[in-house]
């Protein structure tokens, strides 16, 4: 039986991780705009996910300026799958 993951349970973090499954990596501002959050909020969630090795970031260049690229780690992908399965189970059990 799948279990909810405390590191992913915050809705914004769940949304961030699910969005990252649609890309190999994404530029920080692209993710920020898609999530409609501030730089600091995104940084906070990223730091939490990096802390448990669910996401990673690297420095790069976008449109000629230095920026940060974000991606989901394999561990993060597995954790997300398990968390989503638990959520679906929760929804299914009641529905």
């Amino acid at each position, binding site marked *: 039986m799948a279990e909810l*993951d405390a590191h992913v*349970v*915050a809705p914004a973090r769940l949304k961030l991780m699910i969005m990252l499954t649609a*890309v*190999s990596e994404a530029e920080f501002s692209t993710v920020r705009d898609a999530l409609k959050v501030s730089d600091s909020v995104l940084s906070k969630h990223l730091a939490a996910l990096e802390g448990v090795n669910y996401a990673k970031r690297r420095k790069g260049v976008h449109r000629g300026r230095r920026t940060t690229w974000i991606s989901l780690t394999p561990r993060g992908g597995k954790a997300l799958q398990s968390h989503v399965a638990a959520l679906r189970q929760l929804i299914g059990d009641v529905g």
Partner: protein
Amino acid sequence: MENKSERISPAATEASVWLNDAEASRAALARGIKTPSWFFTSIGAAIAAQIGTTAVGLADPSPWTVAPLAAGMAALATVAGVQLARFRQLNGIWLGGLLSRVVLGTETLASVAYGVAFGGAIWAAFDTRWSLMISCSIIGGAAYALLGRRWLRAYRSAPARHARGESLAWLALITVAGLTGLALLLLNH
């Protein structure tokens, strides 16, 4: 550190709203992805040129045909590199699937279409049927471009399934194997 007091057991309705909202955001991100101008057309044209120049180079290896063969390869690498860089700059994202499935043609149908067109072009070139060789090259390039568009539609409908392609190490291995095979064909001819 994670706040241990954080509630980790949402109600079913909450869970449903969160999940639907997150999946809608992912779908919106995938729908919003744009390809640079002439993306598929230029890749298809570069593939057609590469098939044609390689077929001629293999059928009659000489300085006059091997130079265009190398130029065809270089043109394909340049077009692919430029278009992928434009894609990344335009969207602020990177899709490994786009590189492997669309540009390197690891998608099954693209591989088959390329193989058939390439084989046909080589056979036609050996038989000096130049119009057939050109037709095979164009068909191969057109199929590549159409299958690339098909991949993008598939990506938009299921982004998580299609976003990531094969590993870079595997793609490098395939590329090196292809180039080595081509070099051996040229040397043994």
